[in-house]
């Protein structure tokens, strides 16, 4: 991992057109501004990771979830 030291107001340029700016440092928190092209998605890592994990779980358990929510009055040949 590349590690750089920046002061508030200073920036890092990633590639041609992404600029990450340290805006403010206060009480153990850093405010960061990100300028990126509109086709680049920017997320808080932990939020994106939650959705990603939840997708993988939902897919791994799709069969069980389907049985749990399926209308029991509608018989299907693959019911167990």
């Amino acid at each position, binding site marked *: 991992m590349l590690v750089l030291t920046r002061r508030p107001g200073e920036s890092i340029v990633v590639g041609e057109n992404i600029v990450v700016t340290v805006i403010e440092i206060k009480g153990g928190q850093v405010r960061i501004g990100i300028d990126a092209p509109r086709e680049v*998605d920017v997320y808080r890592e932990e*939020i994106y990771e939650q*959705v990603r994990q*939840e*997708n993988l779980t*939902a897919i791994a*358990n*799709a069969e069980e979830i389907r049985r749990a929510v*399926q209308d029991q009055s509608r018989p299907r040949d693959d019911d167990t």
Partner: protein
Amino acid sequence: MDQAEHEALVEKALHFPDGLPGLPDLERFVIVELREDGAFQQLQSLDNIDVSMIVCVPWMFFPDYAPVLSDIEQAELELESADDAILFVPVSFDSESHQVFLNLLGPFVVNAKTRVGRQLVLTGTDYSTRTPIELPGI
């Protein structure tokens, strides 16, 4: 599945150009109804038949649910009005407690006219990936 059936499915397919978080290569899906009351659907991948996810339209359970699309997301999906949007969320289940959950943090939004969609990762909300619901009429 024969060729004609496959073509009919592809015709109805939803296209997610970016794939899903965790599954970036899966772009084409179809929706299969699971219940007569229309409460739950199966989002079935056409790129990998082993991959599917149970989804539901959340407003039956959460009438006030109001995810906000960013300008960028709206532009990407070419959504001009909310009426053109189809929205559904992933469903999960805990087999020990028999509790069903909705993922309100990661809704799918599809433009009904173009059939192009994506899964959003909402920012600046308190919505959870595991919001419990009670099943209707089973």
